[in-house]
């Protein structure tokens, strides 16, 4: 286990100590059973201590960990019979977005998500998971198809944000995102969104207008990356950790704000420690919400989604108030 996450350093140190003691015991035929048991006990305590008290900044680092499972890692674990589809029919096949048809516990659904790369080459192909307009339009095409055929829509959100490029602007980055927001509001099928890693800004929201929005325990969701916020607010991108705390970006924060419906717990140490177990809890959560939503008629699903987003926001209305609060 290499330490990419500084907060895991004490754990790694202790693990080394345990391994060392084991080796010494074997080499010199000494019985350390008791000491080892004690150290393992201490390791578990330390793990609990560290992982149950993660700061927002540390959660951000975990959410961005390159070993963290991506959309394409989860799809075969959560669903069966995945058929990947391609292209927006207008311009290109943006590989920062993946999706297609699949079955969730035997029920056909459309699944679509952001896709980060696994290595440098993959990342370049996939623009580090940051879609161009054609990516959002590809996602929209899949979702419209689902709507037409009455299939539920599942989205996986994992992006630093829409790609900031000149060609992206020229092809209408704003319009592409805006259109998704509007069209997603009108789908007469259940839409369930899961933030699996980083939910960055409009590029994340463009897949995020769901009846239910769920977040993995160590994922984040924010209006601008904490790095971006730090450089705008304090002219210093290196203060991202500080911004992460101030911006309330964790699943717990968003649950309190009423922006998300549920936090899906992660295996100890993060989703990457056990993607199969993580996938199982994602499937269970999706299934539960899908069953609830399936009881609603198309019009009710639209109204349910509208009410959810219409209610988000915090403001005060000074007297004399002429109009009523929703």
């Amino acid at each position, binding site marked *: 286990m290499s330490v990419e996450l500084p907060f895991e350093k004490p754990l790694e140190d202790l693990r080394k100590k345990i391994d060392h003691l084991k080796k010494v015991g074997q080499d010199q035929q000494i019985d350390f059973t008791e000491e080892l048991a004690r150290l393992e006990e201490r390791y578990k305590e330390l793990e609990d201590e560290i992982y149950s008290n993660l700061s927002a900044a540390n959660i951000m680092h975990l959410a961005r960990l390159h070993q963290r499972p991506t959309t394409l890692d989860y799809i075969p674990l959560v669903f069966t019979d995945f058929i990947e589809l391609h292209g927006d029919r207008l311009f290109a096949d943006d590989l920062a977005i993946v999706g297609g048809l699949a079955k969730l516990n035997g029920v056909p659904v459309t699944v679509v998500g952001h896709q980060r790369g696994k290595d440098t080459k993959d990342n370049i192909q996939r623009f580090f998971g940051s879609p161009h307009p054609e990516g959002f339009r590809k996602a929209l095409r899949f979702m419209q198809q689902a709507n037409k055929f009455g299939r539920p829509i599942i989205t996986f959100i994992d992006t630093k944000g829409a790609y900031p490029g000149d060609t992206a602007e020229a092809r209408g980055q704003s319009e592409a*995102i805006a259109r998704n927001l509007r069209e997603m509001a009108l789908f007469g099928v259940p839409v369930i969104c899961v933030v699996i890693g980083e939910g960055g800004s409009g590029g994340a929201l463009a897949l995020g207008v769901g009846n239910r929005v769920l977040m993995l325990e160590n994922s984040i969701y924010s209006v601008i990356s904490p790095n971006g916020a730090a450089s705008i607010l304090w002219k210093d991108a290196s203060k991202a950790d500080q911004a992460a705390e101030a911006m309330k970006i964790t699943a717990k924060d968003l649950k309190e704000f009423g922006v998300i419906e549920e936090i899906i717990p992660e295996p100890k140490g993060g989703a990457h420690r056990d993607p199969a177990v993580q996938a199982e809890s994602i499937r269970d959560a999706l299934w539960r919400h899908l069953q609830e939503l399936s009881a609603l008629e198309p019009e009710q699903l639209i109204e349910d989604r509208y009410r959810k987003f219409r209610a988000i926001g915090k403001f005060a209305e000074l007297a004399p108030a002429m109009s009523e609060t929703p």
Partner: protein
Amino acid sequence: MGTNAAPNKTESGAEERPKREIPEGLMNRCSKCGNIQFTKELEKNLKVCSTCGHHFRLNAWERIAMTVDEGSFAEIDANLVSEDPLEFPGYKKKLAQQTENSGLKDGIVTGTGEIGGFPVAIGVMSFDFFSGSMGSVIGEKIARVIELAGEKDLPLILFSTSGGARMQESILSLMQMAKTSAALAKFQDHGGLFISVFTDPTMGGVSASFASLGDYNLAEPGALVGFAGRIVIEQTIRQKLPDNFQTAEFNLKNGQLDKVVHRKDMKSFLTKLLDMHAVKGVRTDVR
């Protein structure tokens, strides 16, 4: 009319020229070409530079005075104010400063009125309040004016100007994009007419939500309209972008706008467009 007519900085570099003495309030320097003109003349010219045609930024009340028929504007939701839901460092203080500077409670004024005699629901954003950044109040006021337009069967006109989302409200500000777009979805799905006018500048979360969803998307000449900021893009692609990047004209050329409309023609153009929608359906019995 407000008094905050100070020309805002642009990236044109005009600010760097040696300063000549300008009597406070009496005269104005164009941030684009550096031309100095009498404030009175500038105002008579709808705050468009007489030399280069640069459109100075307007605050919400100036815009309303220029656009809505005199005496017809009735403001709604005037008493909505921002809270500090995240207890974000410095936010409350900054809000107070913004109100002091602009005389506004937040970055948009909404209401009903008439344009060329046609009744409309209208919202006008103001860059002089917190750079027009969209937080809960702007999102709520836009959603309400959209719903009002739906209830009263009025055409909807929104003038946008915004630096983007209001970071100090983080996720709540992001969700205003979904909220306003969902409200528009409902309104437009029921046949509602929405005319969106981009003014300088309209960026980020506002550009990427309601502002781009007009049945007709218009912009003032030279208005900066885009999603990501120039600096971020230049850093990403490691290239210098052309001067006209993300201008209204750039967006028109790239198919993102229906028309670029000069300020002096805006009211008559809106009137013309509203007239086109005054009769619904296929009818030949009206003249």
